């Protein structure tokens, strides 16, 4: 268990706490601004999305894995549509889509960075 924990901590981007706090603060500020300016909501949401991806600096694998888990779960959830609401399912799919998008953008960034080296 300790080994797993160590592995997990090692896999986190460093310094994680600092990155996480900064991302959180920036994200919350922009979301608050988005509430005030509804016409800019999509744009600001995209900015928050980018801040999270590049601020946290996780490996794209993490996003792809989470996206795949979500995607595999979706057909089963859709079979249980009578138990969960349609809105909840569509939010779930949106989350899945975000994970894949995040994974792709981060992977693209890493690939370009690698190529420039």
């Amino acid at each position, binding site marked *: 268990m300790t080994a797993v924990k160590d592995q997990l901590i090692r896999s986190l981007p460093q310094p994680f706490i600092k990155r996480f706090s900064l991302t959180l603060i920036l994200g919350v500020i922009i979301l608050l601004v988005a509430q005030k300016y509804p016409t800019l909501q999509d744009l600001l949401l995209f900015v928050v999305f980018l801040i999270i991806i590049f601020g946290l600096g996780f490996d794209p694998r993490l996003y792809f894995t989470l996206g795949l888990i979500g995607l595999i779960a979706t057909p089963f959830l859709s079979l249980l549509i009578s138990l969960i609401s349609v809105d909840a399912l569509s939010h779930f799919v949106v989350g899945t889509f975000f994970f894949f998008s995040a994974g792709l953008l981060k992977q*693209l960034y890493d690939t370009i960075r690698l190529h420039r080296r």
Partner: protein
Amino acid sequence: MKNRYVPLTVITIITCITHWVWLKGSTILSYSDWGYTYRQTYLEFIRPPTLWQTNGLGSINIVDISRYPIELLSGILALSASAEVIEHLVIFYPLMLLMILGSFFMVYRITKSPFAAVVGSLVYSFNTYFLIGVNLILLVAYALFPFIFILYHQALKEKRIGLAMATGLVAWLASAYEFRAFYIMAGLLFSYFLYFLAVYQKDKSNTAIKHIVILGLLPFFLVALLNSYWLLPLIKLHSLTTNDLFSRELFGNAYMSLPRAMTLFHPFWTGHTPANFVIQPLPWRFWIIPIAAFFGLWLNRKNRFILFFGLVSIVGILLTKQVDHPFVQLYPWLYDHWPGFNAYREASKFYFLIALGYSVLIASLIAWLEIVISDYTWGKVAVVIIGVSISTLFLWNTKPLITQDFGTLFIPRHIPASYPALTHLLVNEKEFSRTLWVPRDSRWGIETTYHPKVSLVDTVQTVWNGFIQFVPHDNNWPEQDQMAELLHHPYMANILNIASVKYVVVPVRDVANDDDFFIHYGNNRDFYINLLNQQPYLKPLDLGPNNELKVYENNTAQPYITAQNHLYQVDSLEELDTTYQFVKNQLGSEFNFTLTENGDSSAPHIVNVFDQLKDAKIAPDSLSFTIKDSGDIRLFTNQTKAALAKGNGVAISDEITNTILSPTTAVSTPYASPFNEEHFTSPHAVRFEWSDRLNPLVNLIPNPSFESGLWQTQVGDCNNYDKNPILGLNLSQASASDGQKSLQLEATRHIACTGINRLSVTPNTDYIFRFDYQGVTSKEAGYYLSFDDPIHTVLTKRLPTQDTNWHNFHSIIHAPAGSSHMSLTIYSYDGDHTTNIITRYDNFQLVTLPDLQDRYFIMSRPNQKLSPPNHLSFETMSPYHKQTHIAGATQPFYLTQSERFNPGWKVTLLRPNSFLVDRINPFFRSVKLPTTTHLAWDNTINAWYIDVPSLCQNKSLCQHNSDGSANFDLSIDFAPQHWLNVGSIVSLMTLFAMFVYGLRMIKKKQTSLARWIKSLLKKELEHDRR
């Protein structure tokens, strides 16, 4: 599967099985928007490209003009092939073969696995979007994309100009099939170019970058040059991104969703016959598709190709979901702001990106499995099982195609027996005439340059929309009512005559061919037959077996070009019926009209006085307004009983001198008798004032300016489709058009509404209804008036707001028989569900209008004597160039041309005995008529005021006869065609240059074409071995 020919054979056989209906070249295939084209029509395509298309009442059709190369090819094939064979050679065979073979080659290039390429090609070819699609030209363009991509990638990789030119050539072919498809592909190719620069380009020196940029942009440049024959004139006309096709409202928001986009599932897919516009549940098995695709992406994420196609898939999903979450505003924003994006009024065309991306991603999964687990004993079997399972998902979609349960374009059609007789009639008629199809055209009706088809339902919504007062509301069949209203207008015969509509046809209910469109227009064919039977100018014809196809002949239809001498200017298209009756009965003249706003001063201006109350001042005991008209004026009065009351009446005065021109003392004339006529001269304007001290005018709307508060305390929800409305209602002091306060309605979700119930009205009485409105963040305001008469009459209208200023709406409304109360509702319509849409209203007026309408007409008549020439003949040189010979002209006249009004049409006077070059090339012609003489005749077609005395002042331009009359020749041209001709030269020169370069390249290799191709193939085989 080391040999590629085995999988190629397999996929070809699969395609032949699934599309077996398409194999027989003589089969007629037609469904929905994919019509049927007769051979005679194809033969007309052998001509130079033309910007002006004669379809309907004539227009510039961006899709048709960009398809010229394909149309020309079809025309050439028509010299020796039937219509069915042409369609098969140009559309069906290329589509079924290129789609699967192209995707196979592309996926094979990326994955290097034949088996994976087979699976990828099945994903690309047999997904629900491509199978359900009936826009086949779009699909052929998509089928060409894999080839374009392979060529482009190789051009960038090998840095070969020849390959970049080949990319441009194939891309041009795709654009010639469907330019909108090419536009998406161009975006994709350009993205790939940027991606290539970012992740493939190693040499970062300036020279290398310059070289690769030139190479990367060369195909785009070539496509632009090759298409310059139509791009150039459209750019000059500013109609490349703003035209009828690109000005439509965003459509289909409800159909598109994120889950459907992710699963590559078309919303109308049922597994058998598509359920058009009925959203189908998403079967769970379709979720396997994105799982497989994203698994492939996850496993191959470090492969740069795969990463690119992953991005393509994500962007495809983002666009295809249209306004679904997330980023709900993205698509509407792109639609409004991104140049050319308004060509995609619904997002289904972006399914292509998902299909393309998934085909590579899923194939990459199979290829990965082949490498990783094939070494195990069970590995190969497992890969085959997974590959076959995924392929089965897509092959299963083709089951209804094979069994013909799918219908659509996968079932042979047969031309109903009633149509050949009509086709024969039209083909053998040499004079130009149009055929009006009621309610709309049948696919089996022939259309040629000399006999265009006019669909009534389409024309009612476009060219003739101004003649319609009926506004759709709760009525189930708004189009049916609109068409009936149009045909009931007494002046409609004139409109049809001048548009050269010689035949009117009610098609048969074509149930056998899945084409019974009557269900969309009232589901009652007899309604339309009865409607046409009532028109005295239409004579039924006996055509075809059992007279099943109803064909009527209009014997008064006018030729394509005519000379006319009766035209009136009117201020609006409302109340034309009464003006028509007045002109016909009182003035005894033909009624043709043009709108005053067109600025033609040569025609008499006629005003139905008490229809012009927009700026009327309403006081309790008077109603006054001014009509700006001057010069020699004739006033026609047929006074009302209301005007006879003692001491009251209608005073008509010159605004400056205040001289009363018409006595307030009543002239005792019954309503139906002829009008009294007075002549006077007005220097500026005529003022009308109605007064009645005994019966004062009362505003029937209480608290009309909201100075005493709101009408209702709670906001109404007039579109409560779910439980999450975000609406508001309050008094605004920020802005008001009258007093200090106005009413403010707000809607973020649903439609906010408020109003007044049960206002007392008197049946068969006219009212002036006016109010002010302001769109703070809204694009439209709107009202809804409902009466309690037995048929529950409703009057409703949406009012566009272009700015944030206050605007005034006014209308004269008629309380129907049997009504005693009226209710008024006003709205604020929601938008993108996130923006608060604010609309303000103020200053409502509902005032009883005295019985004054249609009793006062004024006409300002210029002192012009018009007379048509003794003789007029014309010759059609091409759809955009006509020559007219006028003989025996003494007085000015109007020259009409039966094409939809477009300022691009010009008339020039030809010099007598001019050279051929003068007649062919309009740049050399001597006298161009000023644009002010060009007008919209009956608000429909082109007409010009031909001022003969002034035109023939220069004696060398006209031939003068001994009787004082003149003969001359006029040329009518669609001027923007000249830019098309210039663009055509550029296109041809580019094509020629590419051809010469290709030849030179082959010659440089010092080998014959055959040997060159052989060497290419050899290179391919070497590539395989590697």
